């Protein structure tokens, strides 16, 4: 199986929800220190529910496609639901096996989203393994 399969390339070339929001309730940005991939996520939240979402940034196919897929997934979800998302949920979305370095690319968007959802101070940090 080739890791550059259609689905991923689609999201990479034509990302969903790409851009920024003028008045986000939550906005957070991080990069992957190993490679410099960067993602920012803006959210408009009403009644603890995500009403609008945009991401922007740069990086490889995996990091950008994962961000695109994630934004599709969580629109309309509550913050509580977002906090429950796990690394495996993302890897399932990606749908192809990834080595440890590319896993970090894949998880960058989730990391940004969670740090935003919890507030960076309250964030419990990446799960161990």
């Amino acid at each position, binding site marked *: 199986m080739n890791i550059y399969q259609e689905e991923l390339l689609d999201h990479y070339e034509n990302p969903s929800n790409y851009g920024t929001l003028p008045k986000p309730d939550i906005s957070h940005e991080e990069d992957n220190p*190993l490679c410099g991939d960067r993602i920012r996520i803006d959210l408009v939240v009403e009644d603890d529910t995500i009403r609008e979402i945009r991401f922007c940034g740069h990086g490889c196919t995996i990091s950008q496609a994962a961000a695109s897929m994630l934004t599709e997934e969580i629109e309309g979800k509550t913050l509580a639901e977002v906090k429950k998302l796990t690394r495996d949920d993302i890897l399932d979305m990606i749908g192809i096996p990834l080595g440890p370095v590319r896993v970090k690319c894949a998880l960058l968007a989730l990391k940004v989203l969670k740090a935003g959802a919890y507030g960076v101070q309250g964030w419990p940090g990446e799960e161990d393994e």
Partner: protein
Amino acid sequence: MPTANFRPLDVEAIRKDFPIFASTPPLAFLDSASSTQTPHPVVEAMDRYYDTYRSNIHRGIYRISEEATEQYERARQKVAKLINAQRSRQIIFTRNTTESINLVAYSWGSANIREGDEIVLTVLEHHSNLVPWQLLAQRTGATLRFLEMTDEGLLDFTQLRDLLTEKTKLVALTHVSNVLGTITPLQSIIETAHAAGAKVVVDAAQSVPHFRVDVQQLDCDFLAFSGHKMCGPTGVGVLYGKLELLQEMPPFLGGGSMIRAVERDVSTYADLPAKFEAGTPSIAEAIGLGHAVDYLTHAGLEAIHVHEQELLKYAHLRLQDIEGITLYGPAPHQKAGVIAFNIAGIHPHDIAGILDTQGVAIRAGHHCAQPLMHKLGVIATARASFYLYNTTEDVERLCDGLRKAQTLMTRTKGHEKPRRNR
């Protein structure tokens, strides 16, 4: 005697994993407290790395580098599990116990120790858990204080409360003395130190390899040990720390992999454990250590401890028969598998040298514990130490060798040669 629910060691089978014991007569290796032998599965795991997936970790986007990264991180998980750390990111790979302790002294020490602060050590400490604190004290103006020991070689716990004041920021002590074998009452000391507001660094170089150590149960703040003393390779050691402490600490070594973003004048640092692992780490060695943990876990740390206790009791019994011998340290049940001794009229170097000619390897010297030597009133001792591969046969050969040394070294008693006297 083994009564609990564990399988006793199959020492015969274990010895087959160590090629060094294949000669006849086999080497009686009684210096594991210095560095242990390394079993075949550990060496093989490292060879596999070198032969089939040799590459750097963390940044390689190709198969062998991903394999190396996975194996390296798996080793970290194994070590975390061994000492029951909550998170594997609390395990920092270093070169050895010494570097682990220096890391704490430089990073935590520089951030937390001020002029007038006190650091409590014990008279049992190995130089590696003493000199880093001397250097820190010199840099900061802090003072070192020492917990003494009783005549039996046990820590004088009653003194501890007097030593701990509001100035005490840190207690650094060994779990097991590398000379006397003394097992220190760590749990009570840590509780007492914490009650006084001090952090505790444990030198576990001689404990983690030999019995089960649980960092959550102990509640120690830092714990250090070496791979080469636990069937692992040289070149890798471990620092465990409490998560909040490690997170707050400033970096120690600067360089690749420990950064988040580098500008010309300032950098931000990576998350744990990367923050403390600057540069290309000891990759093969960490992988080897992971397999050593597997090896010890498979043999069973309870079984290893019981086996060593039996050897220790046997050796105490047999050694007491040797004329002119002095055994240092507490009774067997209060100590780990280390016996320091001297024989009247024979320098420990000569004991070791003669034993060597008999195929028996022991250590002689100050064992990097000069303050303890001063306390004992000796310059050096001989020392025999045991591990899972030792047998009562090794003990017999030690005793035979010692008798031989006595015969040799006393053969001219009474034949003084006046020519040399002035």
